[in-house]
């Protein structure tokens, strides 16, 4: 049951991590307002998720246990429930945003009203979750999503001043017209978006879906080493394109049209066609990731049977949960609420969920009863502890900064 491109899981996880609809917009906003001055925050996030996804993959492959089981087992039911509530809110709101994104893209392509596309998009998503094999799901969306490389190509075609871009990245400064508080808000937002808990929930459950064992540890390493840096590169390209095209003209990013403007400017209609395919595939992939993560987290907390490798009849509560989440998503979108806005406020829940997710992973990765000889080395532990400190600082600062800056206005 090994798939064709052995690193599809890493790529699909990274797509949800770096180029879902929230990230597409945020990266363009950041590029248009701060240039490449927040590259360090993105890089920090890429390294962090790489470290912890690799740990999660290793724990799943060696012990057969997934992250949310471990969260509850280690932290107990109270902290586990707090994490579950926070993570479920993030999962469901992200899922809602992605479904909205798919509906928006379909509206652009067809001029049929967005609200009519919402149930169609949700139903299409459900059919894939219900019937498609996990490996098909990851291969198709992963490969199609890679067409987003056109963002990177566009940056080259635009022939920018590389020295100036490099200086922005290496010597970050708050541009005139922006507040330091807003700069730091976006730094935390980028870092938090890179390390959103549903990425490790999905990656570790995906490892079990793919039936990874101790023999697949190298495969897991390849997956994270290819997937997440690639995802980070795509994010960076979006920001760079915005820095080159939007920033000098102070163009505000309010929708996907501004996000793809640099690509259209660089490569015309052909490039635009590629990027639209990529965006739809990426948002669909992110939608799959968040839908499945919603099911994984709840089922694993309560000990229900789960998994796409089982027939729906043998994982009934898992599938019912996901159906309910999709229905909630449709309901929220039908109120004409702006889901991208809601995902920004889910920062509040991320502040709770992030430390309560990554601490148990680090601890269990050191537990010989789970890992045998595959426990963390000293370097991994040092990095892990370092990241926990950063995560806690970010968690404490996130909500005050969100209030002060009005969520980055």
């Amino acid at each position: 049951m090994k798939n064709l491109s052995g690193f599809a899981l890493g790529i699909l996880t990274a797509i949800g991590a770096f180029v879902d609809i929230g990230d597409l917009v945020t990266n363009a906003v950041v590029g248009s307002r701060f240039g490449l001055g927040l590259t360090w925050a993105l890089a920090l996030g890429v390294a962090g998720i790489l470290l912890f996804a690799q740990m999660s993959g290793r724990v799943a492959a060696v012990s057969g246990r997934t992250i949310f089981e471990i969260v509850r087992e280690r932290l107990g039911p109270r902290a586990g429930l707090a994490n579950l509530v926070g993570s479920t809110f993030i999962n469901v709101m992200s899922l809602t945003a992605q479904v909205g994104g798919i509906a928006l893209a379909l509206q652009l392509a067809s001029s049929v009203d967005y609200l009519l596309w919402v149930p169609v998009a949700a139903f299409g998503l459900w059919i894939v979750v219900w019937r498609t094999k996990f490996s098909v799901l990851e291969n198709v969306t992963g490969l199609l999503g890679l067409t987003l490389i056109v963002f990177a190509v566009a940056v080259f075609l635009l022939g920018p001043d590389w020295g100036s871009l490099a200086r922005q990245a290496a010597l970050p400064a708050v541009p005139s017209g922006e507040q330091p508080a807003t700069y730091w808000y976006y730094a935390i937002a980028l870092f938090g978006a890179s390390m959103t808990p549903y990425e490790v929930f999905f990656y570790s459950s995906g490892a079990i879906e793919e039936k990874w064992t101790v023999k697949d540890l190298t495969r897991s390493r390849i997956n994270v080493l290819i997937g997440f840096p690639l995802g980070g590169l795509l994010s960076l390209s979006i920001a760079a394109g915005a820095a080159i095209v939007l920033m000098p003209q102070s163009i505000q990013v309010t929708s996907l049209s501004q996000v793809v403007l640099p690509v259209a400017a660089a490569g015309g209609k052909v490039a635009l066609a590629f990027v639209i395919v990529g965006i739809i595939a990426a948002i669909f992939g992110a939608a799959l990731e968040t839908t499945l993560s919603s099911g994984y987290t709840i089922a694993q907390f309560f000990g229900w049977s789960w998994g796409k490798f089982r027939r729906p009849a043998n994982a009934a509560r898992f599938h019912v949960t996901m159906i309910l989440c999709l229905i909630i998503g449709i309901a929220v979108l039908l109120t004409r609420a702006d889901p991208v806005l809601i995902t920004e406020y889910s920062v509040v829940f991320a502040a709770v969920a992030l430390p309560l997710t990554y601490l148990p992973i680090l601890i269990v990765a050191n537990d010989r009863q789970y890992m045998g000889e595959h426990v963390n080395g000293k370097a991994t532990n040092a990095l892990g502890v370092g990241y926990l400190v950063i995560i806690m600082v970010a968690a404490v600062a996130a909500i005050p900064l969100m209030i002060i800056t009005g969520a980055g206005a």
Partner: protein
Amino acid sequence: MTDLPPPPQATGRLLDAQLHLLDRSVVDRNDVPVTTVDALEITDIELDAPIPRGAPAPVITALLSGPVLATRIFGGRPPRSRLERIRWSDVTDIGIVLKLSVDGDSLAVTWVERWMRDKIIARIPGGHHDPE
């Protein structure tokens, strides 16, 4: 960390409730998940009465699951009739997960799963097929 003496040598394998048993996953004999251990049932201890020295110690009689989780988090206890039990004698292996010697379907605790399977999943086409 501590200068206390070690306790007398144990006569068997030691299990701490919070560490090894509570909140652990329970799987049936085919490794299909059944539930998580929400609470443990032990033989009764008489409250408010002195415990005679040398009286037999309580033993674990069952794993508990279900509404008892809410009371464990928030306090209180559910009435005896609402407790969902898995007999301790059905537990065959205690490792990272607790393994049972029986099929999940034969247990009372899986009634919600079976209900959902029969009432909801069975009504949707394709529910009994392997994914393709």
